[in-house]
């Protein structure tokens, strides 16, 4: 092996071990809809929330952006959060400090529903 390869190999091993430990240690890893970043995006388009169900860790902020040419709102069915009316390109953010399941809907077009799962 060349010196460079040795260097890479010796770096790769501890990194791999660290990643493995992270993966094993964290119960929050799921195959889909996982956002470990501080900010998660939900797009409002064609009278629907996308993705409709989002899972985030405690402390994460979810930001909804309205891409429709009709105003919408983001309202928790349990009274936890409630946006002002959002016109095209306007945003609403909420930071989830408690674990739980948060169903919400658009109070203007109530057929539009979504869920934020906070773990």
């Amino acid at each position, binding site marked *: 092996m060349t010196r460079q390869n040795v260097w890479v190999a010796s770096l790769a091993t501890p990194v791999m071990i660290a990643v493995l430990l992270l993966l094993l240690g964290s119960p929050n890893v799921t195959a889909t809809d996982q956002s470990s970043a501080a900010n998660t995006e939900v797009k409002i388009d*064609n*009278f*629907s929330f996308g993705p409709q169900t989002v899972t985030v860790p405690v402390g994460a902020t979810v930001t909804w952006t309205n891409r*429709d*040419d*009709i*105003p919408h*709102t983001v309202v928790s*069915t349990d009274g936890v959060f409630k946006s*002002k*009316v959002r*016109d*095209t390109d306007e945003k609403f953010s909420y930071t989830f400090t408690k674990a739980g399941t948060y*169903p*919400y*809907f658009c*109070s*203007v*077009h*109530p*057929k539009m*529903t979504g869920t934020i799962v906070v773990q």
Partner: protein
Amino acid sequence: MPDKKQDLIDQKLQDLNNDGVDRRGFLKCMAWAGTGLVWTLSGGIPVSRAFAKSSGKDVDKSADFSFVQISDSHIGFNKPANPDVTATLQTAINKINAIPHKPDFIIHTGDLSQLSKPSEFDTLDQVLRGASAKQIYFVPGEHDMLTDNGEQYLQRYGKGTKGSGWSSFDHKGVHFVGLVNVANLKAGGMGSLGHEQLEWLEDDLKGRSASTPIVLYAHIPLWTIYPDWGWGTDDSEQALSYVKRFGSVTVLNGHIHQIMQKIEGKVSFHTAMSTAFPQPAPGTAPSAGPMKVPADQLQQVLGITDVNYLVSGRSLAIVDSPLGASGSSASGNGGGPGGS
């Protein structure tokens, strides 16, 4: 699935004249041709006659009074589907003012504004001041309840109404009831009247003679047109049960920005065009949002509804007319935004 739903809707329409054209087809043809369509109800049986926009002599002779329904002005909307909704509302008012048999009043079936902004309501009021019919009745749409649960709407347009803005009045022997089905909407649901309003409605109708013609008006359709898009009212069945005993019931709605009609026994349902922008037919687009049409067709898909009460036969004739004919771009409306 959409095809199946369309079949269900079409089943409700019948080919009355046995000429191979059902009501939907007839309506489509007439709207495209830019002529008005007269539906007369005689003893609950609909008879249709087409008439040229300029005459309407048949209706004039026997009409006891008429009123006009406009809907979904969405003042404040400024996207491609119509950059100048104030101008098209003005066109609608001009059209109303030009009706030879002067309408006694106007009913606005909601979505006056786009965002419930004071400036939007102010602009609407400014345009409506130019209507020769001075009496205007309103019911709110969901766009009028966006900021404060409709407080502002009620302050401006809710005089004499109860709750979220419902009321009734009598006019020359016809009983009118304005209902609000856009307040306190529940997640996953459609329009909703609510217990308090339903109780009030039952009481309001109690004791009235069954021969009194009834007109119900509300923003969201009081019959289920397309649940996926919220085009219906969850508890309308109860409301309709209260009017079942009456000989002539007409239900006027808006919200869907296109004409749809249905007759069920003695009740005829009708939705109006918007004066702002059209929306797609059920299931023909990803969602119910504003539909862009070529600029020279916009005037054809926006319109007003002229309702004539005919004393003989105690029936109401409903005439929908588009704002303009095919190919016409009314002066002042063409070009960019900011028309006069």
